[in-house]
């Protein structure tokens, strides 16, 4: 089983197991990764599951929808590879992927 590493703003790392088909947000919640709030439970409604995907992995994380882009655009800590983790479906191809968490979820 592959894993994905979440790095908190403080530098703390959390390697979590991939469960194919679940969203990146859900596996963060399932493993209690601090810093992913996911207020709306994965409806792309709140913008509180913001992650910054390591630039080497963006080809694996799928397309960004327009709605997601609009939400992310207004997020203060937005980076070029920012995503809402509820909109990324995890696959084994993401084994070894690293994502960073912003200091604050909006």
């Amino acid at each position, binding site marked *: 089983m592959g894993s994905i590493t979440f790095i908190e703003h403080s530098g703390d790392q959390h390697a979590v197991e991939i469960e194919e088909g679940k969203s990146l947000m859900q596996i963060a*919640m*399932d*493993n*209690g990764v*601090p810093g992913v*709030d996911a*207020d*709306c*439970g994965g*409806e*792309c*409604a*709140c*913008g509180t599951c913001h992650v910054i995907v390591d630039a080497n992995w963006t080809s694996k994380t799928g397309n960004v929808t327009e*709605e997601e882009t*609009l*939400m992310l*655009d*207004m*997020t203060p800590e937005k980076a070029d590879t920012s995503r809402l983790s509820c909109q990324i479906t995890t696959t084994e191809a993401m084994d070894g992927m690293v994502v960073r968490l912003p200091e604050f979820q*909006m």
Partner: protein
Amino acid sequence: MTKQCIIIGASHAAAQLAPSLRQEGWDGDIIIIGDEPYLPYHRPPLSKSFLAGEKTAEGLAIRPAAFYEKNSIQFRQGRVTAINRSTQTLTLSDGQEQSYDKLALCMGSRVRKVSLPGSELEGVHYLRDITDVEGIKAHVEKDKHVVIIGGGYIGLEAASALRKLGMNVVVLEMAERILQRVTAPELSEFYTRIHTEEGVHIHTGIAVSEITGETHTEKVICADGTEFPVDLVIVGVGILPNIELAVEAGIEVDNGIIVDEFCRTNDANIVAAGDCTNHFNKIYNRRIRLESVPNASEQGKSAAASICGVSKEYKSLPWFWSDQYNLKLQIAGLSLGYDQISIRGDKLAGRSFAAFYFKDGQLISVDCVNRPQEFMLSKKIIAEKLSIMPAQLADETIEIKELMKLSSQH
């Protein structure tokens, strides 16, 4: 002896409070007592994707069983019938006692029931938990007739989901307009238009007097004599906070369990979080009771911290969302008491606009329909009490990012 923290209610608040206790360093037992046969689950999808058949009951779980096991969070199915503060014990409906060192009240709310003749007939359902929706689903069939009593968010979301499944949908609202209790006339008018375009029949200013049928519901009869044939009736007329246990135990209650900004009640060993609480909100300078998932989660964090002797102030801006058809409504803040409204976009045509509510020149709330950027902008302006002019928000030639800059300059 190992200390025990008992959480009453396997709710959204509990699903956050329990793991937050571990994060704050609680090393005693954690036991969640709930009366449903499920781990805490997401309730908002019940009237949306779960009713529409796009999500399964398993898919609603907030966290999996393995997570709770790993964090030594136990579940006990049962109903608490009394909180005995002097002995720090709980009495359960099966007669057993459960002692506690710390207690968290996360009882949530329950549906307001109606006492109409015929409301006990088969085919009449409320909508609050998984069992309710499974009951509703048993009657869902294309071209059959459903009457929804109550034109609030739950009723309208159910209308949207059932319309998608091909049912004939009628919504009956007693007030002069749908969503009257929660939003402005502009929004009511907009949602009336959308539902009408989608083929839902909305009737306002109408009172139901009776539901008739042999064993199964057949007709809904209104006070003005209007009759609707029905195969299914859904009642969505609001919720009530579950406060009785607290009242009987002498915990301070006033339209919800009274908590301070750290989610503490008037008993040093008891905290409370979520729908069943009433807190003083500094942004609005008044006491409020919220029916909201983000509130339950955030209060869960503060309550857990308080149990562990850490001060984590609850000071989040209330926000809500509602999905109907292809519309995503995002609401930030509370519009109650607004004296000015400003609209960005065309609410009379199309399906995208934002309504901003002002009081004494200050933005206090926003309703955004398919306008995520206006939502994000407003959250910031309201929470930080930044200044912005109603006319600036209404002017679509000014881009959102420019509005963000304008509001931050003061």
